[in-house]
């Protein structure tokens, strides 16, 4: 039997003996490292190596500060990348036992983000979104395009979530840092985001319910960071209409007719918009969001929950001056929270 056969067969059989083998082998590795150094060793080089081991002795406080600084930098890079990078890729999107694959394209045109998403499985669905970011900003809307971009936004997010760096992994053939956002209360879900080391783009993100249940997982399979052409941002399905529509109207600031008697801590109103049959109010804690719809919908008496993927909708109604309004709270938030919010809707005075 030849030597190579021995080498390759053993690993499958006995792992522990392998480990022993590795331990035996590692001194050899060191010897090999040292050998060239010994050959041409200069006296100055040897003391050089000693101070490098000092970081072990940094006090705990300083290390915590360094860690939170590291997450801050990572979050800021993530926010930048999400808003400013052009890319295309293939993605798997999973929730509650089903998985779909989709094609995503993200481009920047005239300072606006243009996204095209096309499902490659299931019924053909496609959408091109043009976020009227510039318009909204010039119209003085309160939309924080990325709450994480500002220092204040970062602070808000960090008061609602504890951020931990959980290690590293490889996603879509790229090295990523795994960041966990752990909620500080029960009114929001956690997230685990694998951030691309090179660009800061989230390569994988999971939404985590209490007890570690994964509600949703979005993960790149393939990512291409070369500039996106105009053609790539055009819908492939002929009937797809770009949902630019009434951007100007969407950005217009509306005085809210409704308010929340109670909202989970950290969720702040970020937008109020008029609908044809009512209003919608958007709240965010910097990472997750929920939207409260108050509408006059005849014949709509359903009361309860509806779930699709990680998104929950809780429906209820309120009577104001003899008129019935349907309240729907929608978001990636726990059911109970959605229900509490729905019950807290009152008319603003």
């Amino acid at each position, binding site marked *: *039997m*030849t*030597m*190579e056969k*021995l*080498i*390759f067969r053993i*690993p499958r059989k006995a792992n522990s003996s392998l480990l022993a*083998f590795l331990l035996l*082998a590692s001194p*050899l590795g060191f010897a*090999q490292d040292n*050998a060239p150094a010994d050959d041409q060793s200069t006296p100055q080089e040897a003391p050089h190596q000693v101070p490098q081991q000092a970081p072990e002795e940094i006090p705990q406080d300083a290390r915590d500060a360094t860690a939170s600084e590291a997450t801050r930098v990572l979050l800021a890079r993530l*926010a930048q990348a*999400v808003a400013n990078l052009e890319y295309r890729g293939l993605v798997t*999107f*999973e929730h*509650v*036992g*089903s*998985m779909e694959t989709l094609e*995503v394209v993200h481009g920047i045109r005239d300072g606006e983000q243009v*996204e095209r*998403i096309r499902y490659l499985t299931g*019924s*053909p*669905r*496609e*959408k091109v*979104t043009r976020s009227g970011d510039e318009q909204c900003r010039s119209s003085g809307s309160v*939309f924080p395009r*990325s*709450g994480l971009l500002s220092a204040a936004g970062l602070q808000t997010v960090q008061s609602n979530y504890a951020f931990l760096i959980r*290690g590293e992994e490889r996603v879509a053939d790229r090295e990523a840092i795994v960041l966990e956002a752990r909620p500080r209360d029960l009114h929001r879900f956690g997230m685990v985001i694998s951030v691309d080391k090179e660009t800061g783009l*989230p390569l994988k993100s999971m939404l985590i319910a209490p*007890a*570690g*249940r*994964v509600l*949703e997982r*979005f993960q790149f399979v393939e990512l291409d960071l070369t500039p996106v052409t105009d053609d790539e941002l055009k819908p492939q399905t*002929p*009937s797809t209409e770009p949902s630019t529509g009434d951007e100007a109207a969407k950005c217009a600031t509306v005085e809210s007719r409704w308010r929340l008697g109670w909202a989970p801590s950290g969720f702040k109103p970020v*937008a109020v918009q008029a609908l044809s049959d009512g209003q*919608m109010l958007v709240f*965010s804690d910097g990472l*997750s*969001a*929920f*939207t409260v*719809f108050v509408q006059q*919908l005849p014949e709509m008496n359903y*009361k*309860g*929950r509806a779930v*699709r993927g990680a998104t929950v909708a809780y*429906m209820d109604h309120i009577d104001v001056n003899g008129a019935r309004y349907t309240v729907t709270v*929608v*978001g*990636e938030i726990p059911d109970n929270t959605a229900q509490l919010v729905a019950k807290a809707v009152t008319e603003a005075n």
Partner: protein
Amino acid sequence: MSHGSHQQRLNESLSALMDGEANELEIQRLLKESDASGASDGELGHRWSRYQLAASVMRGEKVAPVDMGLAASISAAIADEPSLESAQQASANDAGNGQARSRWWRPLSRGAVAATVAFAAILGVQQMQAPQVQGDLVAEVEAPQPQPVTTNPQPGRFLTPTLNTRAVSTAPQLVPEQRVGPAPQVQVVPTPELMRHLNRVMVEHSEQAARIGSQGMVPHARATYGERPSE
């Protein structure tokens, strides 16, 4: 003896060794040659590595390419050590037999060391991969009974025929408030208006969430998920 036929015979011996069929004479020939040219940087050494690699690939094994430079520096390190040869030098001078034995030893020990290094290299690859295989982060720490999202779509998990399932799965699932007794899932026949409303608010919400922007493409994926397929 021409150089060409010598080389050819060496190659034949080498493949015989690979197949485990080399006789003692062939082994002697190979060892002698490798001693003369240096196993790691000689033509023979390269050919040997190629054969090994090819054999591994044919067996479908994961291959960690062995760095020839590394092998060379290791044999250099070994060469520096007082070898068996020098220990036996006195007796080797007397008998040619003894020198043959020492030639036997040296390349063998080199081979053993090289094998160990290759081993470590392969192990290294496996160790690096292991955490990724286990690595469901959340499951590892917080979840006593994790329900990870199934990676592969399994039509068998659904009771209804595939075509129906697709249509149903993108629609919101209703869980009404009025739960009676132990049966939590009261079957409500959703009106088309209700489903339209729910779909509309979910899509609208996702579009708004996308504007907040900290989640990248995810809200867009959610919004598109509920899009009505084009008729």
